[in-house]
Protein backbone atom coordinates (compact mmCIF):
# COMPACT_ATOMS: atom_id res chain seq x y z
CA UNK A 1 0.00 0.00 0.00
CA UNK A 2 2.61 2.54 0.99
CA UNK A 3 5.03 3.73 -1.65
CA UNK A 4 8.75 3.63 -1.03
CA UNK A 5 9.62 6.75 1.00
CA UNK A 6 11.68 9.15 -1.14
CA UNK A 7 14.67 10.84 0.50
CA UNK A 8 16.44 14.03 -0.56
CA UNK A 9 19.77 15.53 0.54
CA UNK A 10 19.56 19.12 1.78
CA UNK A 11 22.94 20.79 2.12
CA UNK A 12 22.67 23.72 4.53
CA UNK A 13 25.19 26.48 5.16
CA UNK A 14 25.71 26.56 8.91
CA UNK A 15 27.27 29.35 10.94
CA UNK A 16 27.24 29.40 14.70
CA UNK A 17 29.05 32.63 15.67
CA UNK A 18 29.99 31.43 19.16
CA UNK A 19 31.92 28.41 17.89
CA UNK A 20 32.59 28.70 14.12
CA UNK A 21 35.27 30.88 12.60
CA UNK A 22 33.47 30.69 9.28
CA UNK A 23 30.40 29.02 7.74
CA UNK A 24 30.45 25.37 6.61
CA UNK A 25 28.04 23.05 4.79
CA UNK A 26 26.16 20.32 6.60
CA UNK A 27 24.07 17.73 4.73
CA UNK A 28 20.80 16.32 6.04
CA UNK A 29 18.83 13.51 4.42
CA UNK A 30 15.14 14.28 4.60
CA UNK A 31 12.10 12.15 3.66
CA UNK A 32 9.71 14.14 1.49
CA UNK A 33 6.42 14.08 -0.37
CA UNK A 34 5.38 15.98 -3.53
CA UNK A 35 3.64 18.72 -1.56
CA UNK A 36 6.61 19.57 0.67
CA UNK A 37 8.31 22.94 0.31
CA UNK A 38 11.98 23.58 1.06
CA UNK A 39 10.79 25.34 4.22
CA UNK A 40 9.00 22.16 5.30
CA UNK A 41 12.24 20.27 4.63
CA UNK A 42 14.04 22.64 7.01
CA UNK A 43 11.27 22.22 9.55
CA UNK A 44 11.73 18.45 9.35
CA UNK A 45 15.45 18.93 10.03
CA UNK A 46 14.72 21.19 13.01
CA UNK A 47 12.06 18.88 14.47
CA UNK A 48 13.61 15.49 13.81
CA UNK A 49 17.32 15.77 13.02
CA UNK A 50 19.02 18.85 14.43
CA UNK A 51 17.24 21.33 16.67
CA UNK A 52 20.19 23.75 16.56
CA UNK A 53 19.38 24.85 12.97
CA UNK A 54 18.18 28.47 12.73
CA UNK A 55 16.09 30.03 9.95
CA UNK A 56 13.32 32.61 9.62
CA UNK A 57 9.78 31.87 8.57
CA UNK A 58 6.24 32.86 9.37
CA UNK A 59 3.28 32.61 7.01
CA UNK A 60 4.22 29.57 4.81
CA UNK A 61 2.26 31.11 1.93
CA UNK A 62 4.56 33.57 0.18
CA UNK A 63 3.19 36.76 1.68
CA UNK A 64 5.18 37.55 4.84
CA UNK A 65 8.55 37.69 3.08
CA UNK A 66 10.47 36.10 5.98
CA UNK A 67 11.81 32.86 4.52
CA UNK A 68 13.95 34.11 1.63
CA UNK A 69 17.18 32.15 1.11
CA UNK A 70 19.56 31.09 -1.64
CA UNK A 71 18.35 27.77 -3.04
CA UNK A 72 20.89 26.26 -5.41
CA UNK A 73 22.38 29.73 -5.77
CA UNK A 74 19.11 31.48 -6.62
CA UNK A 75 17.23 33.82 -4.25
CA UNK A 76 13.85 32.19 -3.50
CA UNK A 77 11.17 32.08 -0.84
CA UNK A 78 11.69 28.66 0.71
CA UNK A 79 7.92 28.24 1.26
CA UNK A 80 7.38 28.85 -2.45
CA UNK A 81 9.93 26.33 -3.74
CA UNK A 82 9.26 22.60 -3.72
CA UNK A 83 11.63 19.77 -2.84
CA UNK A 84 10.26 17.63 -5.70
CA UNK A 85 11.84 20.02 -8.25
CA UNK A 86 15.32 19.01 -7.12
CA UNK A 87 14.75 15.27 -6.83
CA UNK A 88 16.52 12.93 -7.65
CA UNK A 89 19.34 15.43 -7.09
CA UNK A 90 19.80 17.29 -3.84
CA UNK A 91 19.72 20.97 -3.07
CA UNK A 92 21.94 23.52 -1.43
CA UNK A 93 20.43 26.11 0.90
CA UNK A 94 22.32 29.23 1.96
CA UNK A 95 21.35 32.49 3.68
CA UNK A 96 20.41 35.38 1.35
CA UNK A 97 23.46 36.68 -0.47
CA UNK A 98 24.92 40.14 0.19
CA UNK A 99 23.73 40.30 3.80
CA UNK A 100 25.91 39.49 6.83
CA UNK A 101 25.05 36.10 8.33
CA UNK A 102 23.67 36.35 11.85
CA UNK A 103 23.39 32.58 12.38
CA UNK A 104 22.85 29.66 9.96
CA UNK A 105 20.20 30.83 7.46
CA UNK A 106 19.35 34.00 9.36
CA UNK A 107 20.77 37.20 7.90
CA UNK A 108 21.18 40.61 9.44
CA UNK A 109 18.65 43.03 7.93
CA UNK A 110 19.40 46.27 9.82
CA UNK A 111 20.80 47.93 6.70
CA UNK A 112 17.69 47.18 4.65
CA UNK A 113 15.32 48.32 7.41
CA UNK A 114 17.27 51.59 7.83
CA UNK A 115 17.01 52.27 4.11
CA UNK A 116 13.34 51.39 4.08
CA UNK A 117 12.65 53.93 6.85
CA UNK A 118 14.70 56.61 5.11
CA UNK A 119 12.48 56.78 2.02
CA UNK A 120 9.34 57.59 4.06
CA UNK A 121 7.35 54.59 2.84
CA UNK A 122 3.94 56.10 3.47
CA UNK A 123 1.70 58.62 1.75
CA UNK A 124 2.58 62.21 2.55
CA UNK A 125 -0.72 63.83 1.64
CA UNK A 126 -0.51 66.37 -1.18
CA UNK A 127 -3.41 68.31 0.37
CA UNK A 128 -4.62 67.41 3.81
CA UNK A 129 -8.35 66.79 3.69
CA UNK A 130 -10.62 67.07 6.68
CA UNK A 131 -13.00 64.24 7.47
CA UNK A 132 -16.05 66.08 6.13
CA UNK A 133 -14.23 66.63 2.81
CA UNK A 134 -14.37 62.90 2.15
CA UNK A 135 -11.88 60.36 0.75
CA UNK A 136 -8.79 60.94 -1.31
CA UNK A 137 -10.06 59.97 -4.75
CA UNK A 138 -8.00 58.24 -7.40
CA UNK A 139 -8.91 56.93 -10.87
CA UNK A 140 -8.06 53.34 -11.90
CA UNK A 141 -5.53 54.78 -14.39
CA UNK A 142 -3.80 56.71 -11.59
CA UNK A 143 -3.73 53.57 -9.45
CA UNK A 144 -2.19 51.55 -12.31
CA UNK A 145 0.86 53.84 -12.28
CA UNK A 146 2.08 52.41 -8.98
CA UNK A 147 0.02 49.29 -8.30
CA UNK A 148 2.60 46.61 -9.17
CA UNK A 149 5.22 48.33 -6.98
CA UNK A 150 2.86 48.19 -4.01
CA UNK A 151 3.00 44.37 -4.10
CA UNK A 152 6.48 44.39 -2.50
CA UNK A 153 6.60 42.22 0.64
CA UNK A 154 10.13 43.31 1.75
CA UNK A 155 11.49 39.79 1.31
CA UNK A 156 14.86 41.16 0.12
CA UNK A 157 15.29 38.56 -2.63
CA UNK A 158 16.05 41.45 -5.01
CA UNK A 159 18.93 42.56 -2.74
CA UNK A 160 20.36 39.05 -2.83
CA UNK A 161 20.04 39.26 -6.64
CA UNK A 162 21.78 42.63 -6.94
CA UNK A 163 25.59 42.43 -7.34
CA UNK A 164 25.81 46.24 -7.11
CA UNK A 165 24.40 46.06 -3.56
CA UNK A 166 26.72 43.14 -2.77
CA UNK A 167 29.76 45.07 -3.98
CA UNK A 168 28.82 48.27 -2.18
CA UNK A 169 25.99 48.25 0.33
CA UNK A 170 25.77 52.04 0.35
CA UNK A 171 23.56 51.54 -2.71
CA UNK A 172 19.93 52.04 -1.78
CA UNK A 173 19.06 48.86 -3.66
CA UNK A 174 16.15 47.66 -5.80
CA UNK A 175 13.35 46.95 -3.30
CA UNK A 176 13.55 50.22 -1.40
CA UNK A 177 13.78 52.25 -4.61
CA UNK A 178 10.75 50.39 -5.99
CA UNK A 179 8.83 51.33 -2.85
CA UNK A 180 10.05 54.91 -3.10
CA UNK A 181 8.66 54.97 -6.63
CA UNK A 182 5.42 53.42 -5.41
CA UNK A 183 4.80 56.48 -3.21
CA UNK A 184 6.22 59.08 -5.61
CA UNK A 185 3.99 57.75 -8.39
CA UNK A 186 0.86 57.86 -6.24
CA UNK A 187 -1.41 60.74 -7.27
CA UNK A 188 -2.41 61.33 -3.63
CA UNK A 189 1.20 61.74 -2.51
CA UNK A 190 3.05 65.05 -2.30
CA UNK A 191 6.34 63.85 -0.80
CA UNK A 192 8.31 63.58 -4.03
CA UNK A 193 10.56 66.58 -3.29
CA UNK A 194 11.53 65.07 0.08
CA UNK A 195 12.44 61.76 -1.55
CA UNK A 196 14.28 63.12 -4.61
CA UNK A 197 17.51 63.80 -2.72
CA UNK A 198 17.78 60.09 -1.94
CA UNK A 199 17.06 59.24 -5.59
CA UNK A 200 19.60 61.74 -6.95
CA UNK A 201 22.48 60.63 -4.72
CA UNK A 202 25.04 58.34 -6.32
CA UNK A 203 23.90 55.72 -3.79
CA UNK A 204 20.39 56.29 -5.14
CA UNK A 205 19.43 55.23 -8.63
CA UNK A 206 22.81 55.99 -10.25
CA UNK A 207 24.54 52.99 -8.69
CA UNK A 208 22.28 50.68 -10.69
CA UNK A 209 23.92 49.24 -13.80
CA UNK A 210 20.74 47.55 -15.11
CA UNK A 211 21.72 43.97 -14.32
CA UNK A 212 17.96 43.33 -14.14
CA UNK A 213 18.13 40.13 -12.06
CA UNK A 214 16.13 41.81 -9.24
CA UNK A 215 13.00 41.79 -11.39
CA UNK A 216 13.55 38.14 -12.38
CA UNK A 217 13.63 36.86 -8.80
CA UNK A 218 10.76 38.90 -7.33
CA UNK A 219 8.15 36.42 -6.04
CA UNK A 220 5.38 39.05 -6.30
CA UNK A 221 5.92 40.14 -9.91
CA UNK A 222 7.27 43.58 -8.99
CA UNK A 223 9.72 45.06 -11.49
CA UNK A 224 12.20 46.96 -9.27
CA UNK A 225 14.66 47.41 -12.17
CA UNK A 226 11.95 49.37 -13.95
CA UNK A 227 11.28 51.57 -10.92
CA UNK A 228 14.99 52.32 -10.53
CA UNK A 229 15.48 53.15 -14.21
CA UNK A 230 12.35 55.31 -14.47
CA UNK A 231 13.84 57.26 -11.58
CA UNK A 232 17.10 57.78 -13.46
CA UNK A 233 14.95 59.74 -15.92
CA UNK A 234 13.17 61.54 -13.05
CA UNK A 235 16.52 62.30 -11.42
CA UNK A 236 17.93 63.76 -14.66
CA UNK A 237 14.77 65.87 -15.11
CA UNK A 238 15.00 67.00 -11.48
CA UNK A 239 18.66 68.00 -12.04
CA UNK A 240 17.85 70.23 -15.02
CA UNK A 241 14.74 71.73 -13.42
CA UNK A 242 16.86 72.51 -10.36
CA UNK A 243 19.41 74.30 -12.58
CA UNK A 244 16.73 76.56 -13.99
CA UNK A 245 14.75 76.99 -10.79
CA UNK A 246 16.74 76.02 -7.68
CA UNK A 247 14.82 74.33 -4.91
CA UNK A 248 14.58 76.24 -1.67
CA UNK A 249 17.05 74.84 0.83
CA UNK A 250 17.88 72.04 -1.59
CA UNK A 251 21.30 71.01 -2.82
Amino acid at each position, binding site marked *: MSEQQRMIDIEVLRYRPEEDAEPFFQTYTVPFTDDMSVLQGLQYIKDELDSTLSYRWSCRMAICGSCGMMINGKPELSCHTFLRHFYPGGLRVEPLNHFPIERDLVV*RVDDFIGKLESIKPYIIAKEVRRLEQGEYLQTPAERDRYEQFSSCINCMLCYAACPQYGLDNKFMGPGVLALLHRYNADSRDGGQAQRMELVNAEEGVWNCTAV*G*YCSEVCPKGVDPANAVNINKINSAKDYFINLVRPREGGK
Partner: protein
Amino acid sequence: MSDMQHDARRPYVRPMTGWWRKNPYFVCYMLREGTALVVAAYAMVLLTGLLCLATSEAAFNGWLAVLRHPFSIALHLLALAAMVYHTWSWFDIMPKTMPPVYAGGKRVPRHVITRAGIVTAIVVTLLILLLTWSLT
Protein backbone atom coordinates in the same frame (compact mmCIF):
# COMPACT_ATOMS: atom_id res chain seq x y z
CA MET B 1 30.91 46.52 7.39
CA SER B 2 33.77 47.76 9.60
CA ASP B 3 31.27 48.63 12.34
CA MET B 4 30.45 44.94 12.58
CA GLN B 5 34.01 43.73 13.16
CA HIS B 6 33.75 44.21 16.93
CA ASP B 7 30.17 43.07 17.20
CA ALA B 8 29.58 40.42 19.89
CA ARG B 9 27.12 38.73 17.54
CA ARG B 10 29.99 38.28 15.04
CA PRO B 11 27.99 38.63 11.83
CA TYR B 12 29.79 36.90 8.99
CA VAL B 13 30.28 38.87 5.76
CA ARG B 14 30.79 36.64 2.72
CA PRO B 15 33.31 37.73 0.08
CA MET B 16 32.13 38.76 -3.41
CA THR B 17 35.08 37.16 -5.20
CA GLY B 18 34.05 35.64 -8.53
CA TRP B 19 30.41 36.68 -8.05
CA TRP B 20 29.62 36.90 -11.76
CA ARG B 21 30.77 33.36 -12.50
CA LYS B 22 28.38 31.86 -9.94
CA ASN B 23 25.14 32.59 -11.80
CA PRO B 24 24.50 32.21 -15.57
CA TYR B 25 22.39 35.38 -15.44
CA PHE B 26 25.42 37.38 -14.29
CA VAL B 27 27.62 35.78 -16.97
CA CYS B 28 25.12 37.04 -19.60
CA TYR B 29 25.15 40.48 -17.95
CA MET B 30 28.96 40.65 -18.06
CA LEU B 31 28.86 39.59 -21.73
CA ARG B 32 26.36 42.38 -22.45
CA GLU B 33 28.63 44.92 -20.77
CA GLY B 34 31.79 43.40 -22.27
CA THR B 35 30.49 43.40 -25.83
CA ALA B 36 29.79 47.14 -25.46
CA LEU B 37 33.59 47.54 -25.49
CA VAL B 38 33.70 45.76 -28.86
CA VAL B 39 31.15 48.27 -30.19
CA ALA B 40 33.36 51.12 -28.93
CA ALA B 41 36.50 49.48 -30.40
CA TYR B 42 34.82 49.16 -33.80
CA ALA B 43 33.82 52.82 -33.71
CA MET B 44 37.55 53.54 -33.28
CA VAL B 45 38.33 51.41 -36.35
CA LEU B 46 35.83 53.43 -38.41
CA LEU B 47 37.17 56.71 -37.00
CA THR B 48 40.69 55.67 -37.98
CA GLY B 49 39.38 55.10 -41.53
CA LEU B 50 37.90 58.58 -41.53
CA LEU B 51 41.20 60.08 -40.34
CA CYS B 52 43.08 58.14 -43.06
CA LEU B 53 40.62 59.44 -45.65
CA ALA B 54 41.24 62.99 -44.47
CA THR B 55 45.02 62.49 -44.59
CA SER B 56 45.63 61.13 -48.10
CA GLU B 57 44.47 58.59 -50.68
CA ALA B 58 47.49 56.40 -49.91
CA ALA B 59 46.65 56.37 -46.20
CA PHE B 60 43.05 55.41 -46.93
CA ASN B 61 44.14 52.60 -49.29
CA GLY B 62 46.52 51.42 -46.58
CA TRP B 63 43.61 51.30 -44.11
CA LEU B 64 41.53 49.33 -46.65
CA ALA B 65 44.42 46.87 -47.14
CA VAL B 66 44.60 46.30 -43.38
CA LEU B 67 40.84 45.57 -43.33
CA ARG B 68 41.20 43.00 -46.15
CA HIS B 69 43.84 41.01 -44.27
CA PRO B 70 42.52 37.52 -43.28
CA PHE B 71 43.34 38.27 -39.64
CA SER B 72 41.21 41.42 -39.86
CA ILE B 73 38.36 39.45 -41.47
CA ALA B 74 38.49 36.93 -38.63
CA LEU B 75 38.33 39.81 -36.13
CA HIS B 76 35.36 41.24 -38.04
CA LEU B 77 33.49 37.95 -37.73
CA LEU B 78 34.13 37.94 -33.98
CA ALA B 79 33.07 41.58 -33.74
CA LEU B 80 29.88 40.76 -35.68
CA ALA B 81 29.04 37.95 -33.24
CA ALA B 82 29.68 40.30 -30.30
CA MET B 83 27.56 43.01 -31.94
CA VAL B 84 24.64 40.61 -32.55
CA TYR B 85 24.76 39.45 -28.92
CA HIS B 86 25.01 43.02 -27.66
CA THR B 87 22.04 44.12 -29.76
CA TRP B 88 19.91 41.23 -28.58
CA SER B 89 20.86 41.66 -24.90
CA TRP B 90 20.34 45.42 -25.10
CA PHE B 91 16.79 45.09 -26.38
CA ASP B 92 16.22 42.26 -23.91
CA ILE B 93 16.87 44.62 -20.95
CA MET B 94 15.19 47.64 -22.60
CA PRO B 95 11.63 47.07 -21.28
CA LYS B 96 12.99 47.17 -17.72
CA THR B 97 14.74 50.48 -18.30
CA MET B 98 11.99 52.57 -19.89
CA PRO B 99 8.77 54.11 -18.60
CA PRO B 100 5.68 52.00 -19.30
CA VAL B 101 4.23 52.34 -22.80
CA TYR B 102 0.47 52.23 -23.22
CA ALA B 103 -1.42 51.33 -26.39
CA GLY B 104 -5.22 51.43 -26.44
CA GLY B 105 -5.31 51.92 -22.67
CA LYS B 106 -3.29 48.74 -22.04
CA ARG B 107 0.34 48.43 -21.06
CA VAL B 108 2.47 47.08 -23.92
CA PRO B 109 3.99 43.76 -22.71
CA ARG B 110 7.76 43.43 -22.29
CA HIS B 111 8.30 40.90 -25.06
CA VAL B 112 6.56 43.15 -27.61
CA ILE B 113 9.00 45.99 -26.82
CA THR B 114 11.99 43.64 -27.07
CA ARG B 115 10.81 42.18 -30.39
CA ALA B 116 10.01 45.62 -31.82
CA GLY B 117 13.56 46.71 -30.94
CA ILE B 118 15.15 43.65 -32.53
CA VAL B 119 13.04 44.00 -35.71
CA THR B 120 13.99 47.70 -35.94
CA ALA B 121 17.68 46.80 -35.58
CA ILE B 122 17.41 44.20 -38.36
CA VAL B 123 15.52 46.56 -40.71
CA VAL B 124 17.96 49.46 -40.10
CA THR B 125 20.97 47.17 -40.64
CA LEU B 126 19.52 45.88 -43.92
CA LEU B 127 18.74 49.44 -45.08
CA ILE B 128 22.32 50.57 -44.36
CA LEU B 129 23.68 47.50 -46.17
CA LEU B 130 21.48 48.18 -49.22
CA LEU B 131 22.43 51.87 -49.19
CA THR B 132 26.18 51.17 -49.09
CA TRP B 133 25.77 48.44 -51.71
CA SER B 134 24.03 50.84 -54.08
CA LEU B 135 26.86 53.38 -53.63
CA THR B 136 29.70 50.97 -54.48
